[in-house]
């Protein structure tokens, strides 16, 4: 595929490869997306805004230049920005392919790295010369100001020009918690949302800290995606439950939405409101419980994003799709073209549909079987930041009362 090398989120000639549930493939303009969706579909996007997570810095013990790429943290809480996992490169910048980037000087716990106005201390090595836990030695407010002033969006060699935050924020970008843009959402603008509403397509969001997509190191890339915190709002849980009851489809905009919803459903029987951390891999072995259709960018075989598509379609269909992407001149990477893949009809499994599982859970809860409610335990382990928002989370009682 051709690399999309200009930061245009919605180019007028963007293409869409449509793979339907029976494996039929067609290539259409992406502007016709709404025609491929059905009245009643529930479309869910990731509304995370993207952090300026690439920080040029100096490794103080050696004076060497480094680039620190923030890669994950424990939660989405706005105050929880002291400690990050980070990938550290040596001198150079995004214009060098990550595969060819220099290693940083040997990193040791206790060393300090100065990044603009902030200083970070290396807390822990995480089993790879590039991967460390760091802690900023600043107040939370100063960390946000320092990141805003000094950080840049993480970017790669296929995009030579320096990206600005406005290049990587989707039109619906809200809380800045992603490390790279949830780029399937570039296709979603306010005009599209109006078209959804006009056709009776329901729109909802989750917030998922989309992580780094590539490190340039085979051993590290095998660890991707890292654990990613996410939040499902109560309104989205409501929309999911209604769609489920009424037998309507759930359409995920992007791989992160699949990862979050399926994580929640695997854990609790249904995708429920609240904060959690997605730590699973989604692939051919995954039995989807929530999502019926995915809109995604085009991904190269061998990446975790590509693996995720195997939850929706079999190997033979995806190979045909790859050939069609090449033959039709599709563009790849975050500003490239898109695919819309309906879950193959032979991968449909009623036993694991989320409302089935939810009904079973609700019955168990009413009759006292099945131990402590997973919903209750979920709130018990919530971080203090989440407790403040408890008025917006679903109550265990309401869930149990569900007549789904």
């Amino acid at each position: 595929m051709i690399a999309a090398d200009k930061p245009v989120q919605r180019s007028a000639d963007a293409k869409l490869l449509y793979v339907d549930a029976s494996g039929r493939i067609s290539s259409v303009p992406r502007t016709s997306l709404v025609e491929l969706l059905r009245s009643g579909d529930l479309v869910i996007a990731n509304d995370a805004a993207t952090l300026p997570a690439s920080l040029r810095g100096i490794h103080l013990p050696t004076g060497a230049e480094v680039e620190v790429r923030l890669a994950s943290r424990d939660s989405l809480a706005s105050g929880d920005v002291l400690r990050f996992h980070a990938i550290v490169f040596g001198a150079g910048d995004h214009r060098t392919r990550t595969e060819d980037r220099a290693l940083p000087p040997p990193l040791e716990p206790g060393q300090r790295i100065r990044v603009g106005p902030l200083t970070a201390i290396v807390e822990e090595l995480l089993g790879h010369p590039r991967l460390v836990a760091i802690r900023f030695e600043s107040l939370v407010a100063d960390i946000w100001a320092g990141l805003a002033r000094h950080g840049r969006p993480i970017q790669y060699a296929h995009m030579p020009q320096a990206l600005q935050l406005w290049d990587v924020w989707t039109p619906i970008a809200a809380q800045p918690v992603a490390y790279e843009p949830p780029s399937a959402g570039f296709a979603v603008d306010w005009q599209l949302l109006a078209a959804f509403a006009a056709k009776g397509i329901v729109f909802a969001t989750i917030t998922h800290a989309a992580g780094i997509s590539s490190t340039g190191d085979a051993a590290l890339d095998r660890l991707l995606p890292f654990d990613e915190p996410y939040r499902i709002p109560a309104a989205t849980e409501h929309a999911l439950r209604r769609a489920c009851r009424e037998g309507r489809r759930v359409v995920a905009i992007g791989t992160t939405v699949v990862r979050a919803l399926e994580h929640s459903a695997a854990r609790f029987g249904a995708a429920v409101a609240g904060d959690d951390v997605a730590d699973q891999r989604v692939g051919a072995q995954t039995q989807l419980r929530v999502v019926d259709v995915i809109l995604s960018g085009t991904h190269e075989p061998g990446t975790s994003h590509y693996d995720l598509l195997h939850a929706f379609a079999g190997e033979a269909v995806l190979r045909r799709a790859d050939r069609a992407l090449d033959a039709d001149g599709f563009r790849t990477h975050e500003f490239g073209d898109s695919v819309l893949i309906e879950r193959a009809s032979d991968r449909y499994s009623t036993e694991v549909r989320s409302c089935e599982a939810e009904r079973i859970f609700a019955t168990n809860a009413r009759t006292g079987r099945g131990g402590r409610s997973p919903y209750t335990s979920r709130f018990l382990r919530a971080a203090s930041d989440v407790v403040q928002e408890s008025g917006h989370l679903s109550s265990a009682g309401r869930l149990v009362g569900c007549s789904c």
Partner: protein
Amino acid sequence: MQTDMQSARTLITGGTSGLGLALVRELTLRGARVAFVARTAERVAVVAREYGAHGIVGDIAKKEDIHLIAVQAAGVLGGLDVLVNNASDLGPTPLALLGDTECEDFERALLTNVLGPFRLTKALLGSLAASAREGRGSVVLNVSSDAAVNAYARWGAYGSSKAALAHMTRIWNEEMSMHGVKLLALDPGDMDTPMHALAVPDADHATLKQPGVAAIELADAIADLLPRSRAAVRRAS
């Protein structure tokens, strides 16, 4: 004390003087979680300390500053429920007839009073819509002026820019009503502020409204547009 803004995540531009400062004070008193923007780091630090608000140093007239402001506001507050575009520029000072107005002064008025609010609102539109979807309510208040409606001689740059802001607000409100985001432009009246002193140096202070009074009126207007759960708190208190 009114607590009808309880924990509403709020960003106010021009928060270190005049009406903006009065709004920082009024909204924090009502229980809102307030971040504010202003250009001068020292003033920002003083106001932040005094009111327990989060101060952001930035200039809404500068394109490069908009997302730096947005990422800090949405980051620190964890989202946004209320945006008050208050920062304003008079154009030429002393005020001048349009024929005598330097193009650069007119441009600056448009940048601060129209383009800045447009860019900042656009950058935060996702946060505002997310808040509406979650039932928290979502309000953008653009501070306007009677000069946006009436043709006062020597108020050309300011009046034209505020008229554009008011009309942009009406159109955007139409477009965003389906998403639950409410945008309104309000005229706080002639206030005893540093900006008014620049415009009308010999004004009789006794005839001018105190910015604190205008801030109460604007805060009431915002609170009325937030969900009933917050308004109910207000009635009960």
